[in-house]
C-alpha cells in the first residue's frame, strides 16, 4: 500500500520524498553543503583551477582506459593485433585511444603547471607540507603510468621503450640487475614483461594514484586553499588589527591552524560554489575539448609490429622523457649514468618531494625566498633546455 501511495503522488513530490529518504540515511545535503560552500581565496581562482583540471583529466584517463580494456589483449603475440583491430575496425576505437594518449600528454603538462603554481606561491608551507608531498608523488605516479602505458602496444616503439626503460634499473649498484630481472621476468623483454607491465599500469599504479588523490583532497579540505601571498597583504596602518579582524570573520575552513597568524585567513574569499567551480569547469572543459580535437586530428600512432631483431629501428622517447633521454646521452658510460642519470635525477626528485622540509624560511613571496626560487628555476630551465636539445637531436637522427 505504501508503494502505491508513493506512486500516486506527482513526480516532483515523488522525487523530493525519494531524496528525503536517501538524505535521512546518508546525510547527502549536509555533505553537499560542506563540499560546495567552503571558502576559497578570491584572487587567483583561475590558477587554482589547475588542480581540479588535473582531477578531471585523471578521470578522463580512467574512462578511456576502461574502454580500451574492452579490446586490448595483454599478450605478447596478440597485443599488437588487438590494437590494430581497435584502430582500424572499431568505430570509435582510434578516437578513444587518441584521447587516452593526448589526455596523458595534457595531464602531465597540467600537473607540471599546478606544481609550478604551488611552488611559486609557497603554498606547501606549514601546515600544507603533506599536500605537496602527496602531489609530488602523484606527479611521479603519473609519469610511471605514462611510461608503462607506452610499452603496452607492442609495436616497435612500445617494444624498444620496454627494452630501454626496463634496462634503467640495471645501472643501480647491487640491486639493479635483480630489479631488471624481476620486471622483465627474464634477462630479456618478453611475454612476462608485458604481463607485469600491464599489471603495473592498470592495477598497481592506479590503486596508489586514487588512494593518494583521496588523501590529497582530504588535506586540501582540511587546511583550505592557501592561494598566494597576495591574498594575505594588509592595507591599513595597523596590520595586526586587520589580521585579527580577518581571523575573526573567517569562514570555514579558515582560519588555518598551525600556521602564523598572518597566513591564517585570506583577505577576501568567495564560495567554492558557484564562483570557483565555474572556473574549474571552464578550464577542464577547454582542456578536454583540446584533447578531443587533438585525438581526432592526430590520434595515437601505432608503429609496425615489434621486431626484436631489427637493426634499423631507432627508438625515440616520448616528449616528456626527452630531458632524461638527453641526460643519458650526456652521461654515456656506466659510472656517469649512475652519477648523472640516476644520481642527479634521483636527488632532484627527492628534493622536489621533500621541498617543504627543505624550505624553512617564513617568507612566501618569490622575491623574498631566492634560496628556493633560484635553484628551482634553474632546474626548470635545465629541463626545458634538455627537452629542446633532445627534440633537435631526434629531428636530425
Amino acid at each position, binding site marked *: 500500500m505504501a508503494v502505491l501511495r508513493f506512486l500516486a503522488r506527482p513526480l516532483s513530490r515523488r522525487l523530493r520524498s525519494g531524496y528525503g529518504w536517501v538524505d535521512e540515511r546518508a546525510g547527502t545535503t549536509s555533505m553537499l553543503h560542506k563540499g560546495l560552500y567552503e571558502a576559497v581565496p578570491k584572487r587567483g581562482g583561475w590558477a587554482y583551477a589547475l588542480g581540479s583540471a588535473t582531477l578531471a583529466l585523471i578521470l578522463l584517463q580512467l574512462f578511456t582506459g576502461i574502454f580500451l580494456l574492452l579490446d586490448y589483449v595483454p599478450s605478447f603475440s596478440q597485443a599488437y593485433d588487438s590494437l590494430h583491430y581497435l584502430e582500424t575496425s572499431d568505430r570509435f576505437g582510434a578516437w578513444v585511444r587518441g584521447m587516452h594518449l593526448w589526455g596523458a600528454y595534457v595531464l602531465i603538462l597540467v600537473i607540471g603547471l599546478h606544481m609550478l603554481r604551488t611552488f611559486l606561491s609557497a603554498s606547501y608551507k606549514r601546515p600544507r607540507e603533506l599536500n605537496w608531498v602527496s602531489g609530488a608523488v602523484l606527479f611521479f605516479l603519473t609519469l610511471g603510468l605514462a611510461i608503462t602505458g607506452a610499452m603496452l602496444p607492442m609495436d616497435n616503439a612500445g617494444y624498444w621503450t620496454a627494452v630501454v626503460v626496463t634496462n634503467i634499473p640495471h645501472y643501480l649498484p647491487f640491486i639493479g640487475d635483480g630489479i631488471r630481472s624481476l620486471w622483465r621476468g627474464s634477462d630479456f623483454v618478453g611475454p612476462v614483461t608485458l604481463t607485469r607491465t600491464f599489471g603495473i599500469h592498470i592495477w598497481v599504479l592506479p590503486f596508489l594514484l586514487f588512494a593518494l588523490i583521496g588523501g590529497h583532497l582530504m588535506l586540501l579540505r582540511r587546511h583550505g586553499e592557501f592561494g598566494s601571498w597576495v591574498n594575505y597583504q594588509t592595507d591599513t596602518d595597523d596590520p595586526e588589527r586587520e589580521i585579527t579582524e580577518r581571523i575573526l570573520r573567517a569562514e570555514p575552513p579558515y582560519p588555518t591552524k598551525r600556521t602564523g597568524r598572518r597566513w591564517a585567513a585570506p583577505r577576501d574569499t568567495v564560495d567554492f560554489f558557484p564562483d570557483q567551480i565555474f572556473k574549474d569547469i571552464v578550464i577542464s572543459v577547454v582542456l578536454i575539448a583540446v584533447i578531443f580535437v587533438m585525438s581526432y586530428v592526430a590520434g595515437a600512432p601505432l608503429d609496425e609490429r615489434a621486431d626484436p631483431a631489427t637493426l634499423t629501428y631507432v627508438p625515440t622517447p616520448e616528449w616528456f622523457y626527452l630531458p632524461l633521454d638527453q641526460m643519458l646521452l650526456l652521461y654515456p*658510460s656506466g659510472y*656517469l649514468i649512475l652519477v648523472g642519470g640516476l644520481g642527479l635525477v634521483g636527488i632532484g626528485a627527492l628534493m622536489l618531494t621533500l621541498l617543504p622540509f627543505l624550505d624553512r624560511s617564513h*617568507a612566501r613571496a618569490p622575491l623574498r625566498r631566492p634560496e628556493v626560487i*633560484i635553484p628551482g628555476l634553474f632546474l626548470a630551465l635545465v629541463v626545458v633546455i634538455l627537452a*629542446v636539445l633532445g627534440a633537435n637531436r631526434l629531428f636530425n637522427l
Partner: protein
Amino acid sequence: MSHALVADAVPQSVLGNSLWVAIIASLHIQIATFLTGASTLTVVSEGIAMLREGHDQRHGRLAHGLLRSMAYTFSFDAAIPIFWVLFVFLGLWGTFFIALTRITFWVFIFEAGLFLAEVILLYTLYANWDRLTAYRRARLGLLVLLNLVLFWQMFFIDVVASYMLTPNGGDRSQLAQILNPTDIPLDVHRLIGNIAWAGAVTAAFAAVRYLRALRRAPEDAPFYDWVVQWGVLFAIGFTILQPWVGYSYAKEVQLHAYGAWYTMMFGELSNVFLLQITLLGLIFILATLYLLRRLRASGASGVRSLRIALGLEIVATLLAAMPSRFAWTQGDVTARHLDRPFWQGGLENPVGTMIPNKIIALLALMAASLWALTVYLKALSRDQLRWGDATRRSARGVIALAVVVSMMMATMGVIREHSRHPYLIYGEMTIEGQHVVDHAQPSPGATQR
C-alpha cells in the same frame, strides 16, 4: 677574357685571408652579441621600472643607459658587416661566399630584413625615449619588438654558422639546412651567452664609472655600485647553464662532424679547449669573488658559504682544466707508443679524462656557482646590502671578469672555426682554393666522415 680583368690584386694567402676574417668577425661578434643580450636586459629593467613606478628610479635609468649604449655600439658595428661582406668575403673568399649565399639565400634575405627592422626600432627608441615616457607601455612594446628582432637575427645567422660545421651531408632541403644538427644547440648556447656577456659588459662599464664616481661624484656611486652587481648577477646566472649546453653542442658535433669533434677533443685544438675550460672556471671564480667581497663590504651574511663555494670552484677548475696527456695531441702519444698512464712511463693522465672526471668537475663547478648565487641573492632579498660601499678592488675584479668573458668568446670562436679544418663547409668545400668536394673522389676529410 681581357688581361685587365684577371684578379691578380686579390691576396692569395689562406693564413692572411683567415686572419682578416678572424679580426673582423671577432669585433663584430663581440658587439652584436652585446646588442642582443643588452636588448633583453633593457626589457627586463624597463619592465621592472614600470612595475615599481615611483619606488625605484634605478631600473628606468639603467634601461635608458642600456638603450643609448646599444645605439652607439650599433652605429659603429653596422659598418663592420658591410666591410666584412664587401671586401673580406667577396674579395678574399668569393667562391665560398657566393656558394654559401646560394645555399642559404632566404636566410640571408631574412637577415637583411631584420637588420632594417633593427635600424628603425633602435633609432626610433633612441631619438624618442623621453617623448615616449608618456606612453610607457608602447615604449616597452617597442623594446620587446627590438628584442625579438635581435633574437631572430641571431637565429638566422646561426643557421649559416651551424650549417658550415654540420651541413647534414649537403642536404639541400631548406628545413634540413635551417634545423641542421648544431643549429638549435648553437641558438640556445648563444641566447644564454649573449645575456651573460651583456651582463658582464654592463657590470664592467658600471665598475669603471663607479671607480670614477668614488673620486669625482660620490652621489653617483650607489647607482653604479648597484648596476655592477645587477650585471654580474646576469653574467654568472646565465653562464651557469653554459657547460651543460656547450657539452650538448659538442655532442652534436661528435655525432654529425666527427672529424671536427676529434680535432677539438684529441687533436690540435684540444689544448685550446683546455684554455677554454680554464677561462670558464675563471669566470665563475671571479664572479664569486666579487659576490663575496660585495657581501663582506656591507657586513651581510653568507660570506663563509661563499668562501667554501669559491674553494670548490677553484678545485673543480683545476680538475676540469687538467690535461689528459702530456703531449700536444693524442696522435703524438700514439705515434710514440706511449699510450699508457704516466705512472707506467707513458704520456697519458687518466685523472684529466673528459669522461667521467672533467664532467663531474664541471657539474661541481655549476653546483658551487649556483650555491654562491643563491647565497648572495638571499642576503639581497633580506635587504642586507648597502649601495656605494663596494671596494675598489671588487670593481677592478669585475672589469677583469668582463675581459675573461671576452677572451672566452674569442677562444670559442677559434675552436669552432678551426675545428672544420681543412673545410670551409664541413665535408663540402675546402679552405685551400675553396674547392667544392667531389664525393666520388677521396677528399682530405673522407676518412673522418
